């Protein structure tokens, strides 16, 4: 851990620490000024050398009770300013499985913001220690801690105030007041993530807009029970109001209708469940800064929408149109506009695209690192195949052979691609990948992919997911992945002869060292994992 040198607690607050929990701590608090030179301590690095006598434990504070431990304030003075250490520390608390975290408010600065000159310490813990304990509590625990006593209540209040990130599960029966009462406590919130089990509407949106002036990132996820009533107009107003907002994610946007978004700050937009999206209006001046756009499960999103997206945003790095109705010509437009920026393209559940569209995308988008085409190339006879699943392999094979003409082939040669997902592409029967950087390949449920037409030339593959594939295919994947590996090793014992025409085997004694090397390499190289359920 490299946090060794970060004092976790504010020494200035540790003057009063007593084991007797019932004794009110002394009214005295640590001085804000350096004990030696008298300058304010904040951000101050005292250059007056520490006199030995003032060294903390060399002169233990005489005390009537042996239980009193006093941590001297002078400790902090000879250290570099605390806030430098804390600035990158993150605080996280969790609420059910969802957390509240606040970007390291240094205890010092937090104390300073309070007008009360007497921060109460209780529970027998120094204020700094109490802070450290409480900041590790989930929000629900924090609310319980607020009821313990005044000192604890004060500390929890400061923790809420310092929170920059809040992740909250909103229970089914909760009213807007629930979110309001929580958000009121944390005015410095920058990131908010809500998992809604109750309905979402414009009132809640207004409450967020009002309570969190500095919001940069907002996520709203909806449970199955919750209805998101927010309309396109309401969302547009919210986005226009929140001038710091850079990232907006919202699930369950079934009532959005059309929308016009205007924001100079927004760089990530993720909207899901756009079932009833009637029209897509892209205000060209609206979202100039957009880098990541996800419009998920919008069956009304067509090639025309792609044209609008392409003409509006020229710098997209991520485009996710999963669950849309776009076709290969839509992919063509994407390729024309984003060849120099797009690194992630997600087109899962797009039934209208074919393997040639995918091939085209990989050929035209040189920066592509992630591509998801899950459930896109589906078996046109999937129903038949499904009923066949219980039959023996031979029968199914015969069936597949009969139909294989309608299956599609996919050939990808790409020098940057790292992740490729073809899950559920049951319409694929041949696959050839030459991707030197590929490390993750998902072939789950590619059940018609044939072993004899599979070729994987991907030396960096670390995992291949192949559950629900033919048995033989799994074997082929395994052997091809391992032969990639073997090929790499076999280069060693051979050496080109002087005329360069022929390879001869180097006598064994020559390459003992390299043998050692290879062994080493074999150990160090992470073997590719073929994952089957």
């Amino acid at each position, binding site marked *: 851990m490299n946090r060794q040198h970060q004092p976790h607690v504010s020494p200035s607050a540790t003057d009063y620490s007593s084991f007797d929990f019932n004794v009110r701590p002394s009214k005295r608090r640590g001085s804000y000024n350096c004990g030696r030179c008298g300058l304010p301590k904040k951000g101050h690095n005292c250059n007056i050398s520490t006199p030995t006598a003032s060294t903390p434990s060399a002169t233990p504070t005489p005390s009537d009770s042996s239980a009193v431990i006093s941590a001297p304030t002078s400790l902090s003075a000879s250290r570099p300013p605390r806030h430098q250490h804390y600035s990158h520390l993150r605080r996280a608390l969790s609420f059910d499985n969802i957390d509240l975290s606040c970007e390291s408010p240094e205890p010092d600065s937090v104390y300073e913001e309070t007008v009360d000159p007497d921060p109460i310490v209780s529970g027998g813990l120094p204020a700094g220690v109490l802070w450290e304990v409480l900041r590790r509590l989930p929000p629900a*625990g924090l609310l319980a801690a607020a009821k313990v006593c005044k000192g604890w209540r004060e500390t929890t209040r400061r923790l809420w105030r310092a929170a920059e990130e809040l992740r909250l599960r909103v229970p089914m029966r909760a009213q807007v007041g629930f979110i309001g009462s929580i958000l009121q406590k944390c005015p410095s919130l920058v990131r908010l993530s809500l998992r809604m089990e109750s309905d979402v509407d414009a009132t809640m949106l207004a409450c967020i807009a009002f309570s969190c002036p500095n919001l940069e990132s907002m996520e709203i996820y909806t449970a199955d029970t919750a209805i998101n009533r927010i309309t396109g107009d309401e969302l547009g107003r919210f986005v226009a109001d929140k001038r710091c907002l850079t990232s907006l994610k919202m699930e369950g946007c079934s009532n959005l209708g059309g929308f016009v978004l205007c924001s100079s700050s927004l760089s990530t937009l993720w909207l899901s469940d756009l079932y009833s999206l009637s029209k897509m209006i892209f205000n060209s001046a609206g979202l100039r800064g957009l880098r990541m756009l996800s419009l998920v499960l919008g069956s009304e999103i067509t090639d025309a929408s792609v044209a609008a997206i392409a003409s509006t945003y020229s710098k997209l790095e991520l485009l996710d149109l999963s669950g849309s109705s776009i076709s290969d010509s839509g992919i063509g437009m994407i390729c024309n506009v984003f060849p120099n920026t797009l690194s992630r393209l997600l087109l899962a559940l797009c039934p209208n695209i074919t393997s040639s569209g995918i091939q085209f995308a990989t050929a035209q988008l040189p920066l592509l690192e992630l591509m998801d085409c899950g459930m896109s190339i589906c078996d046109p006879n999937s129903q038949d195949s499904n009923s066949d699943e219980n039959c023996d392999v031979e029968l199914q094979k015969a069936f597949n052979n009969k139909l294989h003409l309608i299956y599609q082939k996919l050939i990808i040669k790409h020098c940057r691609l790292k992740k490729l997902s073809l899950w559920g592409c049951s319409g694929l029967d041949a696959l050839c990948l030459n991707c030197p950087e590929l490390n993750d390949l998902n072939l789950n449920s590619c059940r018609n992919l044939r072993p004899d037409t599979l070729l994987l030339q991907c030396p960096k593959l670390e995992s291949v997911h192949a559950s629900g594939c033919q048995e033989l295919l799994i074997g082929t994947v395994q052997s091809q992945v391992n032969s990639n590996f073997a090929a790499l090793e076999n280069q060693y014992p051979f050496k080109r002869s002087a005329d360069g025409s022929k390879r001869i085997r180097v006598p064994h004694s020559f390459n003992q060292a390299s043998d050692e090397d290879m062994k080493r390499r074999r150990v160090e190289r992470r073997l590719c994992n073929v994952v089957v359920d």
Partner: protein
Amino acid sequence: MAIMYALKSSDNEIFEVEQKVIEQSETIKKMIEDGAATGEIPLQVSSKTLAKVLEWCKQRQHKTVENENDDNKGKRKKERDEDDDIKEWENKFSDELKADKDVLFDLLLASNYLDLPALLSFLCQLVADMVAGKMPEEIRRMFNIENDFTPEEEKAITAEHGWAFQP
């Protein structure tokens, strides 16, 4: 030959410790650097608590030394085994502390005083885990805290967060 230091507890017991072990404490390290630590180093920590602190420091020290001696070969597996060992040790350590809360709180204060960030954060997490999910009354009992709210105040807080205690 390792440099040894003598630590004196508040009840005048002497502990002989290697420099490397006690230098994890920023407070003591500072004292040594300042030259204040000739002879016995007096500490405001009881011998019982100090023994626990040193137990922790030695375990940490053990870990860092072993890591330094490792070369790359097979490091991954070894590290994993080591992590398991440390986890096990920490679990035992925390079980002991959970059983005796007085020792836990003494240790918490000592780690704060001696400026042992790793121990402090470990203990704070331990205490937080003990506090989480408890009702205010249980927490008060645990820490021996007196409820200093007036009934009216208490009512107001409950009204504010009523939902927090709903199932």
